[in-house]
């Protein structure tokens, strides 16, 4: 090509001894085309072989058997736990079986926000077609002794009418808080933020 006289830096290519750019040979190979020069030129043929070798090696590297050491997960999780960001404690007012507030013998009970959130998420997950996402647990200011839950949900497409699913989640959260934490649910705000597709057969 005449452009070659202007210098290779303009084409930013790697010329073979026959004058063709390696880049162009690769491009032809990618597109599965070849011209008369390419068919007979030994330099072009060598370049094509090189690329084929590289492509095979690339596949071998995609199937890289190098595994992270087995203890890396533990190392990471230990470091993550050491970071803190633990949920603070919630001052709770426990209730008895009739729902009446009880003053515990040992004074007020503090439990971790984190632990309550886990119970609430788990309760939502038990509803088929529902996944809990974010979950905020606070003391309900408008309802003394109750916890306020704000949760976002993802629903499976075709799992049923959204408002029915949401009401089922609300009921399960209420009974989980009562049965497993021993505290009453106040306001439970549920927001659907995503839908995931039905799993294949």
């Amino acid at each position, binding site marked *: 090509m005449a452009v070659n006289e202007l210098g290779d830096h303009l084409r*930013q290519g790697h010329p073979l001894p026959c004058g063709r750019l390696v880049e162009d040979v690769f491009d032809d190979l990618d597109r599965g085309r070849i011209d008369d020069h390419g068919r007979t030129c030994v330099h072009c043929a060598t370049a094509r072989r090189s690329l084929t070798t*590289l492509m095979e*090696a690339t596949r071998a*590297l995609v199937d890289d*058997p190098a595994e992270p050491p087995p203890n890396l*997960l533990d190392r990471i999780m230990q470091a993550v736990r050491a970071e803190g*960001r633990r949920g603070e404690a919630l001052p709770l007012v426990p209730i008895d079986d009739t729902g009446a507030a009880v003053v515990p013998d040992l004074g007020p009970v503090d439990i971790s926000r984190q632990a309550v959130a886990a119970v609430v998420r788990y309760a939502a997950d038990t509803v088929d077609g529902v996944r809990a996402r*974010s979950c905020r647990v606070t003391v309900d200011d408008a309802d003394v002794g109750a916890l306020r839950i704000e949760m976002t949900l993802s629903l499976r497409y075709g799992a049923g009418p959204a408002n029915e699913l949401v009401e089922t989640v609300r009921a399960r959260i209420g009974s989980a808080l009562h049965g497993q934490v021993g505290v009453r649910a106040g306001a439970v705000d549920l927001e659907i933020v995503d839908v995931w597709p039905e799993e294949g057969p």
Partner: protein
Amino acid sequence: MSGAVPAGLDQAATTGGPGPGAPVLDDATLVARARDGDIRAFEQLVRRYQRRIYQLALRMTASRADAEDITQEVFVTAWRRLPELREDAAVVGWLYRTATNRCLNLLRSRKPVAEMDEATVAADRPADDPQRGAENTARREALVEALGQLPPAQRAVWLLREVHGRSYDEIAELVDTTPDAVRGRLARARVQLAERMTPWQ
């Protein structure tokens, strides 16, 4: 959690993360939960992506020790910075970006003399078919060696595209350039790798 834990709470808290047989949760759900401080959800993300991040770091740095450290740093930083992540489903891209930056920073700070880590590369398990396994191992080793001779930024672009299948747009954003520049770098990397693996002149 204080000593006075209501019955059932502990159990529910520990089953908050999916045990065996539990549904596989999508990234967005895990990120939303991890952001609330759910360590088990975060652990699932680590399990899902630590191998890819480790392999990228290993092939970037050619050092197992560095790859382990970088993988750990990437995930601990992710945990710390989850609240800033806008798009929950974008966590993979974020992990790749952080890992690539860490690798490039590390390589910049290394002495210019290329010292190959002794405990590096290979030690690959043979595949089921020993002959094919040995061929793949040899190809992979040759490629890894050739990769080590590319400039780090070019190596990153090649690995992210050809081995990890990231998009041109994502890579461009990641190394702060344009998709066209990424294509150019990729073409140059291919030529150099192919040349190093099978000299054609």
